[in-house]
């Protein structure tokens, strides 16, 4: 892609040469190597549990640094938000101060216990046994597979795009996506709602993209197929460590170059407006980025979307012991401190060094090239920093492939289609399902759907809305019935979906040409665009300025608890199996 805008930085950093490609190959090589190590580690044990759960042997580091799956968005979407809106984004991500604690302390121990009691290694399997009802398993399984597929397909595209741009001379700066005329505005909108950022293509795609897609897919499916769960966790751990090293190098170089943090803020104010240092954030298009209502919503979204996401529940189930969980709380808390606050500081400094970027998504790649320039091994260091999002994307994709194919194999194939399958058959089914997931992802991304990002947001937050309350009920409330679980999951998700769809409709109506009577009646009912949050087609409908996820939690709780209370209580001896112990006096 030609870089057709005037260079903004003083140096020509549009072509980093081979360093990025080299760093990417290093990531790929390390991942494949970890995959083969993982295969050795799980060889002797029972296949399914070893492959999908690493024989329940995760240690503290592996659990802590991979449980809240980071994705490419941490290095792309989030920095773009800081660059665009300023200090307020630290409040947007502020609930990460308690995410580590809540990730393990709310349901961690209990899920680990229940998954062992039921001898299950997928979430639907656990729920199915807990309620002795195949419907609970089937519904949760279908929801998890669907949600994760959308998110995963989007990550494939991001991975392929990064590979494409890594070719020397292709203008690596557009790490995120192809340039569009209104990229700054669009990027803002699309990244904000979900840090798992990726965008829909609206330009013809060239051959490099296909090469990137194939290389990416073969690598990720390959090492996941070889090493299973452990391979996925270990590569995730590897990229998390690379990430913290990259962020530390960046902040240590960038802040002094901007003249210190206070000076950086003052320069940023001078270059934009005083809004960049206050809430609701700087905006060039008159939209309030983080109103108090939305700030409150974020303190729910990150917490309750996090600990019930299938990826993190599976990791907790794989933990070796409760001691490992305790250590993970501490490790992850420290890790988050080292990632998010320094990233914000770096992007504030970027307003001094790169005051007017057209594409805020490029802030980290550009900064990393700018600050390492002139250092010994500078190109190599910036290559590593640039490759970090790629590592993050590989790690999350491999985790998604595992959860999806474990769902297909265990929850669908073994449970419903072929209960008497031998180990060799299960192994073959696993290979077939993983390769097919890869193939489908490639096919889906040959011509990436336009509105993929909407589905990604819908899946991530919708998953939180669907599972938070039911999982809590399954863990702690004896009276929970299978019908209550189904009601909690389905109502939570449908309510979320309904409010999102209402937002899309409202947005469409606001942009519709004058004279459309349907559009006018939509606006009459839903009200005009509230001008808050992020711009873009897929803004949800905010009731009282609060995100739909918060309302969905409330509605899901009412539906789940209410339905449980009006249905027949579960059999006491069944519940007792999970709640009681007989003590001999």
């Amino acid at each position, binding site marked *: 892609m030609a870089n057709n805008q005037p260079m903004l930085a003083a140096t020509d950093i549009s072509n980093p040469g081979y360093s990025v490609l080299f760093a990417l190959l290093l990531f790929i090589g390390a991942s494949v190597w970890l995959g083969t190590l993982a295969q050795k580690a799980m060889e002797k044990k029972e296949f399914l*549990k070893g492959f999908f759960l690493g024989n*329940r042997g995760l240690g503290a580091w592996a659990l802590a640094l991979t449980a809240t799956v980071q994705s490419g968005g941490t290095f792309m979407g989030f920095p773009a938000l800081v660059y665009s809106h300023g*200090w*307020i984004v*630290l*409040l947007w991500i*502020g*609930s990460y*101060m*308690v995410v*580590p*604690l*809540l990730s393990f*302390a*709310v*349901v961690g*121990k*209990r899920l*680990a*216990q229940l998954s*062992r*009691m039921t*001898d299950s290694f997928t979430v639907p399997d656990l729920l199915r046994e807990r309620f002795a009802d195949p419907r609970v398993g089937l519904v949760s399984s279908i929801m998890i597979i669907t949600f994760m597929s959308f998110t995963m397909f989007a990550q494939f595209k991001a991975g392929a795009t990064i590979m494409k741009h890594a070719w020397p001379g292709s203008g690596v700066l557009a790490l995120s996506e192809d340039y569009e005329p209104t990229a700054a505005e669009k990027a803002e909108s699309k990244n904000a709602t979900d840090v798992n950022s990726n965008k829909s293509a609206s330009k013809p795609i060239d051959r490099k993209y296909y090469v990137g897609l194939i290389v990416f897919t073969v690598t990720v499916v390959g090492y996941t197929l070889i090493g299973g769960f452990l391979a996925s966790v270990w590569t995730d751990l590897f990229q998390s460590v690379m990430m913290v090293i990259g962020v530390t190098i960046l902040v240590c170089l960038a*802040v002094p170059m901007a003249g210190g*943090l*206070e000076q*950086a*803020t003052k320069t940023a*104010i001078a270059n934009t407006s*005083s809004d960049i*240092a*206050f*809430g609701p954030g700087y905006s060039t298009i008159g939209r309030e980025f983080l109103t*108090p209502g939305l*700030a*409150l919503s974020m*303190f729910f979204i990150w*917490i309750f979307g996090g600990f019930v996401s299938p990826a993190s529940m599976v990791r907790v189930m794989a933990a070796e*012991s*409760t001691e490992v*969980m*305790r*250590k993970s*709380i*501490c490790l992850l*808390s*420290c890790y*988050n*401190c080292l990632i998010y*606050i320094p990233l914000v500081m770096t992007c504030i400094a970027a307003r001094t060094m790169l005051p007017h970027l057209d594409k805020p998504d490029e802030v980290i790649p550009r900064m990393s090239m700018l600050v390492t320039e002139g250092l010994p091994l500078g190109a190599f260091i910036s290559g590593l920093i640039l490759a970090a999002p790629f590592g993050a994307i590989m790690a999350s994709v491999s985790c998604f492939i595992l959860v999806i194919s474990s769902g297909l194999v265990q929850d669908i194939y073994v449970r419903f289609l072929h209960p008497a399958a031998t180990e060799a058959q299960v192994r073959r089914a696993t290979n077939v399902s993983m390769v097919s997931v890869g193939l489908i992802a490639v096919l889906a991304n040959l011509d990436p759907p336009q509105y993929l990002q909407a589905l990604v947001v819908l899946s991530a937050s919708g998953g939180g809305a669907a599972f938070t309350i039911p999982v809590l009920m399954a*863990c*702690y409330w004896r009276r929970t019935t299978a019908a209550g679980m189904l009601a909690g999951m389905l109502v939570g998700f449908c309510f979320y979906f309904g409010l999102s769809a209402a937002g899309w409709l409202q947005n469409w109506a606001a942009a519709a040409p004058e004279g459309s009577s349907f559009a006018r009646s939509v606006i009459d009912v839903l009200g005009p665009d509230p001008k808050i949050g992020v711009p873009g087609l897929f803004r949800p409908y905010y009731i009282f300025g609060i995100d739909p996820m918060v309302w969905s939690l409330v509605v899901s709780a009412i539906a789940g608890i209410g339905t449980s209370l009006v249905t027949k209580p579960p059999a006491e001896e069944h519940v*007792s199996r999970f*709640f*009681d*112990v*007989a*003590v*001999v*006096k």
Partner: protein
Amino acid sequence: MPDIQELPLLKSAKREALTALGIWLAATIYSLGYCFQNGYGRAPESLTYVLGFPDWVFWGIVVPWGVCTIVASIFAFWFMKDEDLPESGQ
């Protein structure tokens, strides 16, 4: 004569879950409350800096973030109880 009791892990897990939710609530109330008070709708000239951070960012987010990290570590090492996890399938 065996007596039926609640699983020990369930008991400690409930206590820890409630405490963790309490910490989340406290952090949310403090952090949002402070930032709404001091970070929104303020005269730009009144902005001061603490260690380079705008004052409301420092007291409203950075400090509670540090406190939460310490509290989480205390929680992990002194409050949360280790329990035996059953063998698979029991």
